[in-house]
């Protein structure tokens, strides 16, 4: 799938579903089969990075890089780097399920004014 086809909802869905990091890989600038898909991905990427940081998700958990089909070494390096980054950050705090409120969870009894 062309990187320009990555709907930002896919990325958020990945984080929502439990991903600790998301790596988008596209063709090198100038090599996109659809000409400009990777540039579109690049513009979305920077907006998305800023957006997720406002949700308390570290920017480094989302990465974009260019790797062509003939760059096995770079592919391996990019994946390994991403794994290192995510390991260093640790697991992402999970978002509670949509279907329950905090009612009766016990930590609501005292309002802490600190």
């Amino acid at each position, binding site marked *: 799938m062309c990187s320009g086809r990555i*709907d*930002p*909802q896919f*990325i*958020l*869905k990945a*984080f*929502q579903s439990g991903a600790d990091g998301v790596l988008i890989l596209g063709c090198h*600038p100038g090599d996109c089969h659809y000409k*400009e898909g990777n*540039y*579109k991905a*690049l*513009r*979305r990427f*920077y*907006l*998305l*990075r*800023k*957006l*997720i940081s*406002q*949700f*308390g*998700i570290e920017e480094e958990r989302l990465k974009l890089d260019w790797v062509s089909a003939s760059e096995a070494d770079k592919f391996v390096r990019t994946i390994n780097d991403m794994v290192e980054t995510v390991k260093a950050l640790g697991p*992402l*705090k999970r*978002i*509670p399920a*949509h*279907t329950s*409120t*905090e*009612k009766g969870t016990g930590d*609501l*009894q*005292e*309002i*802490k*004014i*600190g």
Partner: protein
Amino acid sequence: MGKPKVAFYWCASCGGCEEAFVDLAEDILKVIEAVDIVLWPVALDFKIKDIEKLHDAEIAVSFINGAVRTDEQEDISKLLRKKSGLIVAFGSCAHLGGIPGLANFVNRDKIFDWVYKNAPSVVNNNGVFPQKKTGVIEGDLTLPEFYDTVYTLDQVIDVDYYIPGCAPPPDLILKAIEAILSGTLPEKGTVLAPDRALCETCKRRETKPEKAAIKEIKRVHQVMLDPERCFLDQGIICLGPATRDGCGERCINANMPCRGCFGPTSRVVDQGAKFLSALASIIDTNDEAEIRKITNSIVDPAGIFYYYSLPASMLRRKLNV
């Protein structure tokens, strides 16, 4: 058979949605004649006890506005669910979380610290803070429990229909009421407004950029707004491409960009992500440094893209506040 029973209730709400009913003017009299109102805290003196006494599903329809952020709001919503045939989430706050939902960027402690200690207009030297329970001569007074997270109504109870808008416009309210009274409602879960983007009916759509067109993003107070040209083409963020039609372009006609109060169309889950995507496709540069510069010039993207829909978004709230 008597007239259908109807309840109105408000949760975390500003009162504007109640006002929207009153704004139906003489049309509201027709509605009131046709139904038997059993609960309407803003206007009439009924008690929750009265509702508890009703049979299950005895109320034909309950209109609930406001988001859910306290245990009391959750309890009453659940009670109304049990006692009602239909639940209608009324207005942006019940539908999507709305403006109160922006509190999901912080948490309860931060809100209390700000409201009772740190806001510049607050003087609270004696440290007077709200308590869940306060003893007085007459007995114990209690306050509802305040949640860390703001919820949409459908995250708390099953919702049958949605009337969108902050506040919903009179024509949509009347149409919805007519459909309910005449039993011509669409499929359960429907948002009772047209299922297309606002841009499709906007008068300014002729000038809406189809491809890369803007090099700079500006805020409304920084420019003289052209009253004819598409806001996006002026570099002003307008949520029209990611927002459902049906308000009559209220903001656009007042020469203000759309902030998305109608929520997304049925094909979109996350309104903010959808708008981000639309915006990225009209930024006119492929140069990385310039893309970063433009991105950084948007002061609060999450706050604008989810102005009304943060609790309904995929990520719902800020983690690690």
